[in-house]
């Protein structure tokens, strides 16, 4: 469970107004906007990571499974579960 702490910062007036407007447009709170911004800054400043050590599946996906639509993918999974019963 997250612990929240209060802090006080001074933010340039126009920037704060714009952030409040964006929060309303995005149906979120100003706090959420600030938190996301901080997370992006921290991620951008992270150390370069290792390359991807690719892992490959030994099997293959069946024909007819359409991954370009989540709707179709879930329908396929549900049908498969019904057929297995």
């Amino acid at each position: 469970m997250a612990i929240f702490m209060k802090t006080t910062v001074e933010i340039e007036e126009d920037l704060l107004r714009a952030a409040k407007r964006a929060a309303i447009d995005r149906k979120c709170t100003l706090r959420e906007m600030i938190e996301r911004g901080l997370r992006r800054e921290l991620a951008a400043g992270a150390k370069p990571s290792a390359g991807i050590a690719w892992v490959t599946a030994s099997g293959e996906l069946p024909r007819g499974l359409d991954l370009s639509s989540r709707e179709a993918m879930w329908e396929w999974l549900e049908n498969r579960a019904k057929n297995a019963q």
Partner: protein
Amino acid sequence: MIAVDTNLLLYAFFPQEAEHASARAALLRAQADGRGWGFTVANASEFWSVATRAGGERAQAATTTEAVAFLASLIHAGAQLWQGQADFGLRLLAIASQGEILGRRIFDLQIALAARDDGATEIWTHDRDFVAVAGLRVFDPLG
């Protein structure tokens, strides 16, 4: 930051898929982008659901060892695993209700909101109908 969707993970995992090479190239681009990258717990669960069950009548497509090793390799390479922030569930339901999100489209919204919560500004997906949310650009790196 860049969120990568389940279908890119699956294409990159299964070498027989026509999109396999381009999906791997997309993941490498996301990793090299510099803004940070990751995927949500919901993506990981979806990946697991398909990858370990989709092998047809007689066999599963991938072993659990392979599936966890694939996801772990991405995390080791810098991908973050996101699950949304405080009150995520309540906000998900409120936005779904306000936006009249129906049926399985809730899974798009769940992924988009969790990714946005944790700082993503883009989601890379090959889904032709992905439900967009404000503040999260949808981009098809295979398109």
